[in-house]
């Protein structure tokens, strides 16, 4: 669901085809009939933005028909846990959970906590919008012991999570799903039954999603909903199960692990806040999770500081914690864009991104670039983001004149992945090393080269700066060995630093359990600790599957953490450590050896027996019982109900997209109350009609990719043999909509929103079809977003149409569900141009 795997992850999709050949049923739930649908055994067409209704329907189906994997649910999830008295469900408050603050538009989660659980000042985290737990996508409430205070193993207590779920999803019936999503109840039931049949002891089912799920104002809750389904069915931590997030760019996973995000430090440690927690102790106290692996946060942080500041970081100076940069507000990408327009951000470095085409509301982005004093673009080509000042729809339309733009643009040619050493971290958290095949041409340089030498020069400048603010920079260890004519820094030296050393012996660390908070270990990213164990580049291992003992192929590359291929894999065995079934054996407890063993690296302390019970004052991992597999969580359980860490509610609820075709069938509260809209003159929102399918923007639009191109097109519209395969921007519409709006197949159309208008070629196809919402017909328009004004083939950019409304947890734009209008014909001047 929410993934077009055949088109966007074709190489991985070969295994889905294998599964199909072996008799697996493949359901593709997507608004469009895509190449994936064509390969799937079943395609279920739903309306963009309606997945939580669909998934909620699955949850309700499972609970109403008792299809859950009882033993797994009671033992491994927080289903039995009682929630505090003052929690109120959306069913009680017409679409809001308790704790909502209308004028800040945020939730105070204190009423969502486990009954009888002591709360620690989580407030700071909430306001900064960051906590270790949240950043790690799990964790949360402050349990003082590994065991929640109040539980009901019979799952009968009205306040236990299991019963809360029942109540919350009771109205998500097959009929509700059909009316809200636009599929048929029969299709839904067929899917629901097939999924349940494929789950349990003997079998497992998996979900695959990608940005069809994330790019919504409730994106994180989409995935939470899938997590609930999979936990209820016992499909987590087991082979053939799970929720597979197919990620984007070759190492986009890596760029969140060792983040390019403003609010995170490596390994999902939160970026310290300016005022909140003062010194290191305060920071750890506020952010750590005493039980579970987050209980060692101090060790992770101190080791990181030792990696950053080396000898200069000492116990006396709080390990240099004070030197770290601070955040004081939401500085996420889109906010920064607005700050550029408003003149508070004056300089901008863009590396490996093409926001003028790739980011929602392209016009606003180009306006932002035009408002800067200086702009640095590091790219393989002179992309739209670098050429915006003389080649853009606005310039073409004569709205802006190049001579009026004051931005000074520095275009720096980048070396691509074939021209440099480095690692890719893929969807499976698997690091794979690549070696430079050729030397970069001319002035092209690697990222590593650029930032290393930039840092070196800045350090030289600041060498004897008296300013206190520069101390941190001066304290940085910045001594990577370089080689070659260009003095290219050694990528492997960086990997070694990320892995870390035991500073007493100088030996490389073997894994994150070795990390200490007394300054005797240095580690650049705790979750990657072990990638350079024994001084060997584990990510560079390339032993083929068929030369290895198990299909898990543990000697191919290296997966964080600790080279585990399936997270929480202790759940593949029952409470007593026996495999749930022989077919599905994966990791189990070997009583004779007194250790966990199996096909994968156990995601558990190898010697902790299934019957281990923590003492009252046990901390960190020691506080997790031997039969609780979800070791990152404070209670070692999979969370059906999330007391804290997700800022827009403990249970996913169907909300309409920010720009929905109509009202919310469930509640008066139409869209996610905690969503982040950007009120700015450059970012108007389309009005929402009271009746679906009416108003100035009656149709739903969704944007997506084509196999033939890559994202904002910088790497495909510049390549002839790719450009010819999809030479022009087009929209995909159903024959019914073509009839309605008078669109000609192969002709031209103008698509418009309150942000902009673009022209596209028209593809009338039966792969698209209108959907029924509450008995009204609403049409869906498909828009690939690969085109822009430069390259061998150019065309209208879908992102000129999209607006900026964001998910409150991860600030991703809702580019998968918006409203628009369409008419036959072309734009007067400018707009998108056809193939050139």
């Amino acid at each position, binding site marked *: 669901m929410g993934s077009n795997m*055949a*088109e966007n992850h*074709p*190489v991985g*999709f*070969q295994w889905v*085809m294998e599964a*199909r*050949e*072996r*008799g*697996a*049923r*493949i359901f593709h739930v997507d608004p469009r*009939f895509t*190449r*994936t*649908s*064509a*390969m*799937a*055994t*079943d*395609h*279920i*067409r739903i309306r963009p933005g309606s997945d939580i209704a669909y998934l909620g329907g699955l949850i309700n189906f499972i609970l109403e028909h008792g299809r859950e994997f009882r033993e797994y649910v009671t033992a491994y999830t927080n289903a039995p846990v009682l929630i505090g008295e003052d929690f109120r469900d959306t069913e009680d408050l017409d679409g809001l959970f308790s704790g909502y603050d209308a004028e800040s538009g945020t939730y105070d989660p204190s009423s969502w906590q486990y009954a009888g659980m002591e709360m620690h000042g989580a407030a700071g985290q909430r306001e900064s919008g960051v906590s270790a737990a949240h950043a790690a996508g799990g964790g949360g409430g402050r349990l003082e012991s590994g065991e929640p205070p109040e539980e009901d193993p019979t799952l009968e207590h009205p306040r236990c999570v299991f019963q809360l779920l029942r109540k919350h999803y009771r109205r998500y019936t097959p009929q509700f799903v059909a009316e809200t999503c636009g*599929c*048929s109840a029969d*299709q839904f039931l067929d899917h629901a039954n097939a999924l349940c049949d494929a789950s349990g002891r003997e079998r497992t089912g998996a979900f695959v999603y990608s940005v069809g799920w994330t790019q919504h104002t409730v994106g994180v809750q989409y995935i939470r909903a899938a997590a609930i389904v999979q936990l209820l069915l016992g499909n987590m931590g087991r082979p053939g199960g799970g929720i597979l997030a197919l990620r984007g760019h070759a190492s986009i996973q890596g760029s969140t692990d060792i983040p390019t995000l403003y609010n995170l430090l490596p390994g999902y440690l939160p970026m310290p806040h300016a005022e909140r927690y003062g010194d290191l102790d305060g920071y750890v106290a506020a952010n750590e999770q005493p039980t579970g692996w987050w209980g060692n946060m101090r060790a992770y942080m101190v080791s990181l500081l030792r990696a950053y500041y080396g000898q200069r970081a000492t116990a006396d100076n709080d390990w240099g914690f004070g030197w770290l940069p601070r955040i004081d507000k939401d500085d996420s990408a889109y906010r920064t864009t607005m700050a550029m327009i408003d003149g508070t951000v004056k300089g901008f470095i863009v590396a490996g991104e093409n926001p003028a085409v790739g980011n929602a509301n392209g016009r606003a982005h180009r306006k932002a670039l035009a408002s800067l004093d200086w702009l640095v673009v590091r790219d393989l080509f002179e992309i739209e983001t670098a050429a915006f000042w003389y080649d853009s729809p606005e310039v073409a339309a004569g709205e802006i004149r190049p001579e009026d733009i004051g931005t000074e643009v520095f275009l720096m040619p980048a070396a691509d992945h074939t021209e440099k050493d480095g690692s890719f971290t893929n969807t499976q958290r698997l690091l794979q090393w690549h070696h430079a095949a050729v030397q970069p041409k001319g002035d092209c340089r690697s990222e590593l080269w650029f930032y290393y030498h930039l840092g070196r020069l800045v350090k030289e400048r600041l060498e004897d700066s008296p300013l206190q603010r520069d101390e941190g920079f001066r304290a940085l260890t910045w001594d990577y060995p370089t080689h070659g004519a260009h003095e290219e820094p050694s990528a492997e030296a960086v990997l070694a630093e990320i892995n870390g050393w035991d500073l007493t012996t100088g030996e490389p660390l073997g894994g994150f359990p070795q990390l200490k908070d007394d300054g005797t270990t240095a580690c650049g990213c705790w979750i990657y600790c072990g990638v350079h164990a024994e001084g060997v580049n584990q990510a560079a291992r390339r032993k*083929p599957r068929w030369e290895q003992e198990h299909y898990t192929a543990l000697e191919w590359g290296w997966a964080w953490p600790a080279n585990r291929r399936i997270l929480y894999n202790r759940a593949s065995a029952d409470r007593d450590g026996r495999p749930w079934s022989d077919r599905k054996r994966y990791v189990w407890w070997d009583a004779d050896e007194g250790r966990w063993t199996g096909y994968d690296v156990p995601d558990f302390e190898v010697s902790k027996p299934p019957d281990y019970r923590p003492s009252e004052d046990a901390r960190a991992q020691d506080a997790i019982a031997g039969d609780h597999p979800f070791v990152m969580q404070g209670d070692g359980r999979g969370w059906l109900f999330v007391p804290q860490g997700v800022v827009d509610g403990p249970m996913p609820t169907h909300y309409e997209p920010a720009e929905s075709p109509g009202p919310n069938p469930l509640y008066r509260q139409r869209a996610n109350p905690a969503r982040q809209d950007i009120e700015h003159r450059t970012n108007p929102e389309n009005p929402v009609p009271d009746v679906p399918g009416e108003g100035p923007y009656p149709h739903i639009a969704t944007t997506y990719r*084509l*196999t*033939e191109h890559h994202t904002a097109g910088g790497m495909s519209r510049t390549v*002839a*043999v*790719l*450009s*010819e*395969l*999809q*030479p*022009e921007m*087009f929209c995909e519409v159903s024959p019914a909509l073509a009839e309605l709006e008078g669109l000609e*197949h*192969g002709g031209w159309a103008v698509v418009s929103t309150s942000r902009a208008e673009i022209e596209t*070629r028209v*593809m009338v*196809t*039966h*792969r698209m*079809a209108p959907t029924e919402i509450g008995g009204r017909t609403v049409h869906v328009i498909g828009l690939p977003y690969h085109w822009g004004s430069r390259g*061998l*083939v150019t065309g209208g950019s879908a992102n000129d149409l999209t607006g900026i409304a964001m998910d409150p947890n991860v600030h991703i734009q809702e580019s998968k569900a918006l409203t628009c209008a369409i008419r036959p014909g072309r734009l007067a001047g400018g707009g998108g141009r*056809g*193939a*050139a």
Partner: protein
Amino acid sequence: MTTERADALAAPHGGNCADGWRTYGDDAQERVGFFTDTSICIGCKACEVACKEWNDVPDDGFAFTGQSYDNTGALGANTWRHVAFIEQDRPVRVPDATPPAPHPPGGDTGAADGFRWLMSSDVCKHCTHAACLDVCPTGSLFRTEYGTVVVQEDICNGCGYCVPACPFGVLDRRERPNASVVKPDGRVHKCTLCYDRLKVGEEPACARACPTDSIQFGELDELRRRADRRLEKLRAEGWADAHLYGRDPHDGVGGFGAFFLLLDRPEVYGLPPDPVVATRHLGEMWRWAAAAAGAVVALVAAVFAGGRR
């Protein structure tokens, strides 16, 4: 997956094919080819791109055809692999013909009727009896030791005879000056079955790139066995109209070196339903020509009967 097949070329010399095929000389290798199984083609076009990259084939122009996702249109001088896209209001499987599971793809789309999107990667068939090769006056087209049919670009004089001779419309003459051919080229071009790669024991670029193994490269005999097994399986699963195209060594071109598993009639994919190599009737044609020549002679002789006036 491909690696298991890569060594298909480490074959003993002088091999024979079931259909009486004999490759020539001491260099003779097992006859190799493709089995393209369109039932698992995901239409990613990796084959098309890999072919162009490896063989330095220029682009075919940037035109939006509106023919589903196919914008290169057909095989030609600048497209040696071509992926066809066909959208049909028809389920892949005949409704309840034989067991429900496993379920063939493309199934129900919410529309009352089924819907399917056929994708198929076409290529030169490397015919057992290749018209192009037969008619080539210069010997530029030749039969390699692998039983494949290749144009020698240093000999082809662009007479163009092979172009209408091919019953599949594979070959074409390259004229248009473009990115990689600066001056007009004038010669014909087509799939070489990556002759250069075969020579070094590599499998062809398109097959190497194909993520789902829709394109299977190997020894023809083995491929035919594999195809038969595959067809059996699909038939059992009730796939509509699944059939092998070009597998039969007794068809009009003596079987293809590169054959296919199709899910609809060949013409739907732009392939001829019953191709026959034109030269099959060459003897007959020469006889008719001889007769005609005789008639001319007779006529010329006859006209002198009446004397000079």
